[in-house]
């Protein structure tokens, strides 16, 4: 499709967003990621029935934890689209990229870099 898409994110493929656990998203932030977005199937279209609903709940849990620890819950988001919507995936990636750039770097990532510089 030759769609334009930001290159500053890593795609982690999973059989279903229901496989995404809270700790997977938290680990990304712990390692310095500025944002995480989970892209699942359309609600009601999950092959495993409730995988994307589970993922949404977990994204909400992560957002609450990130708010509590001062990282900011707005750094994690969930999107839904169908597997045939490549252009929408690119659009969501661009949207997330702009959203995270507006928020600036993650304070955890900044602290990790400062620690490494000091060491």
């Amino acid at each position, binding site marked *: 499709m030759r769609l334009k898409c930001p290159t500053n994110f890593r795609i982690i493929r999973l059989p279903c967003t229901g496989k995404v656990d809270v700790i997977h998203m*938290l680990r990304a932030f712990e390692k310095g990621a500025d944002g995480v977005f989970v892209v699942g199937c359309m609600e009601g279209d999950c092959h495993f029935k409730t995988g994307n609903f589970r993922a949404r709940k977990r994204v909400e849990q992560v957002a609450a934890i990130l708010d*509590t620890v001062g990282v900011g819950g707005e750094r994690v988001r969930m999107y839904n689209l169908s597997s045939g919507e490549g252009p929408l995936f690119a659009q969501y990636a661009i949207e997330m990229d702009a959203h995270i750039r507006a928020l600036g770097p993650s304070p*955890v990532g900044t602290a990790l870099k400062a620690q490494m510089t000091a060491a």
Partner: protein
Amino acid sequence: MIVADKKPIEEIIETVKPYDRILVLGCNECVTVCEAGGKKEVEVLASALRMHFIQQGSKKNFDERTLERQCDHEYLEEIRDIMDNYDAVLSLACGVGVQFMAEKYHTTPLIPGVNTCFLGATEKRGLWTERCQACGSCVLAHTAGICPISRCAKRVMNGPCGGSTGGKCEINKDVDCAWQLIIDRLRDLDRMDEYEIVTPIKDWSTERAGGPRTVAREDVQV
């Protein structure tokens, strides 16, 4: 099982502040089932704490471990060789596990990571409800298998009281009247004649009011 709920992370952050090397210790039993203190919760809490403290420029170390049980000598012994590496243990076990840890590792500060709530059942994922208050002398045989001690707000032994309306308790319209449930089930079991029997005053000495309790079984002790 024992049902517990997570403590707010803000509260845990405050309690771990004085320590640098902390072991976050989970329990594989009841608190795993009620999703408050199992391996997953240990990972999530340790990760959240690391992220919080790294932003403060703090070099606290949070290690993770989950034991089969924290209310048994043999499993608590598994961490004896690593206990010297820590200034404190953040235990996600129920109050029993935390206290047993405190008795076993006398000089290590302990921080509870969950609020222990009650003895209950899993109604559905994410919903646990109280079923037993461990009163020490079970009356379920006479109450159609429904406990008036744990499920009646007044612990009435010959109910219902005047606060029962439409099968609900006066304390909250969402709470079933235990005695309504008992009567309904006795009727279904065709045992309504048992409802006529007046239950004598219960012996509460076996309950918590009689002080800390012990079960000593000499037949199984070696």
